[in-house]
C-alpha cells in the first residue's frame, strides 16, 4: 500500500519535473559505424510527440570498387510495430508522431560487407497541450507558443545538421575523387610505359639471332 503510494508520488513528481524542465527536447547528433546492424534507442516521454530526425551515410572509403548502394533504416515502436522503414538510401529525413510513449528503436542495417559510417540526428519534440495546461497551474498559455517557436527553431537546426552531414559526405567524396584521379592516372602512365617497354623487348626478341633463323 505504502509502496504503491510512493511509486505514484514519485511518478507525479517526475512528470512535474519534466514539465517544468522547460519542455526539454532531446537532441542527439552522433556518428556510428555500421557493420551489420546498429541500433540506437531513444525514449519518448509523451504520446503524440513528434519525433524527427535525419541520417546520412558519410563514409566513402571504397577505392577500387563501385560506390556503396545504401543502407536500410527502421524505426520500431515500444509495442514492436515498425513505424518507419526506408530501404537502400544514402541519407534521408524522417518525421513521425509517436503513437505511444516508451523506448523507440532506430536501426541501421548494412546489407553489404563494407562498413559504413552513418551520421544521425534524432529529436523528440513536445508541445504542451490543453491537457497539460489544465494539469499544472505553473504553465501559461504563452508557454505553448514558446514551445511551438522552439520546435520551429529546432527544425531549422535539424535541417542545418542534415546539411552539415551532407557536406561531410561531399567532402569525403571529393577526397576520394582526388585520390582516385591521382592514383589511377599515375597508374595509367606507369602501365603505358610498362606495356610499351614490353612491346620493344618482344620485338627485339623476335629479331634476335637465336630465334630469328627459326621463326621470322
Amino acid at each position: 500500500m505504502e509502496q504503491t503510494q510512493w511509486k505514484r508520488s514519485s511518478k507525479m513528481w517526475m512528470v512535474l519535473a519534466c514539465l517544468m524542465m522547460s519542455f526539454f527536447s532531446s537532441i542527439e547528433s552522433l556518428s556510428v559505424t555500421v557493420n551489420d546492424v546498429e541500433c540506437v534507442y531513444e525514449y519518448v516521454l509523451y504520446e503524440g510527440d513528434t519525433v524527427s530526425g535525419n541520417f546520412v551515410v558519410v563514409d566513402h572509403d571504397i577505392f577500387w570498387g563501385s560506390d556503396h548502394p545504401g543502407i536500410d533504416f527502421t524505426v520500431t515502436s515500444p509495442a514492436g510495430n515498425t513505424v518507419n522503414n526506408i530501404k537502400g538510401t544514402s541519407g534521408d529525413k524522417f518525421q513521425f508522431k509517436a503513437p505511444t510513449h516508451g523506448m523507440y528503436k532506430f536501426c541501421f542495417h548494412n546489407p553489404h560487407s563494407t562498413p559504413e559510417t552513418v551520421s544521425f540526428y534524432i529529436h523528440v519534440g513536445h508541445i504542451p497541450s490543453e491537457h497539460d495546461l489544465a494539469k499544472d497551474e505553473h504553465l501559461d498559455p504563452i508557454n505553448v507558443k514558446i514551445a511551438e517557436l522552439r520546435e520551429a527553431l529546432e527544425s531549422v537546426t535539424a535541417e542545418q545538421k542534415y546539411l552539415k552531414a551532407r557536406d561531410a559526405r561531399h567532402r569525403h567524396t571529393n577526397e576520394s575523387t582526388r585520390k582516385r584521379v591521382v592514383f589511377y592516372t599515375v597508374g595509367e602512365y606507369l602501365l603505358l610505359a610498362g606495356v610499351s617497354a614490353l612491346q620493344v623487348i618482344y620485338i627485339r626478341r623476335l629479331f634476335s639471332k637465336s630465334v630469328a633463323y627459326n621463326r621470322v
Partner: protein
Amino acid sequence: MEKNNHTKQLRSATTFLLLWLTFIGESQAIWLTIPTSGTKCVSEEIQSNVVVLADYYVVADEVDHHHQIHTVSLKVTSPYGNNLHQKENVTHGQFAFTSAESGTYLACFWLQNKHEQPLTVSLDWRTGISAKDWETVAKKEKIEGVELELRKLEAAVEAIRENLIYMKEREADMREVSEATNAKVAWFSIMSLGVCILVGALQLWHLKRYFRKKKLI
C-alpha cells in the same frame, strides 16, 4: 518467448531509468548496446572551441540472474589522438571538455570483463548550446520563467546563425578542392596524351636504332 522476456526486461529497465531521472534531473539520452566482444564507438565532427558535455551510465536490468554489477570501460579521443577521458570498469560517469581542434571526436565503449550478454549504456552527449548550463545563467542574471525561455530561444537563434556562417566557410573550402580536382583531371588527361605520344616516339626511335645496328634496314 525470448522476445517477451526481452521486452519485459526492457520495460523494467525503462521504469528504473525513469526513477533514475527524477534524481539526476537530466534530460534524455540515447541508449547503445555494447557487444560482448569488440568496441562500440560513436563520433561527432566538432569545430574548435566548442563545449562538450556528456553523461553516461549502464542501464541496469532488474532481472539479473547473477546479481552482478555490470561495468563498462570507455575512452574519449580527440582528432589528433589525445586521450581526453578514460575510465575502466565504471557504472556511470561524466566528462566535459572544450574542443581544442576541429575534427572527429570519438567515444569508444567496450566490456572489460567477460559478460554473457551485451550491455546497454545510456549516453547523453551535448555539444555547444545544448551543453549550456541555464541554471547558473538564470541565477546570475536573476531571470526565470518566460524570460528564461526567451533567452534560450535567443541563444538557439545565435547558434543557427553561427552554424550558417560555418557552413558557408566549409562550402568555400570544398569549392576550392573541387576546382583543384577539376583542373587536375584536365591537366592529367592532356598529359596522358602527351605520355602516349612520347612513349610511341621512344619506341620508334629505339627500334629504328636497333634494326640499324642489326643491319636489317
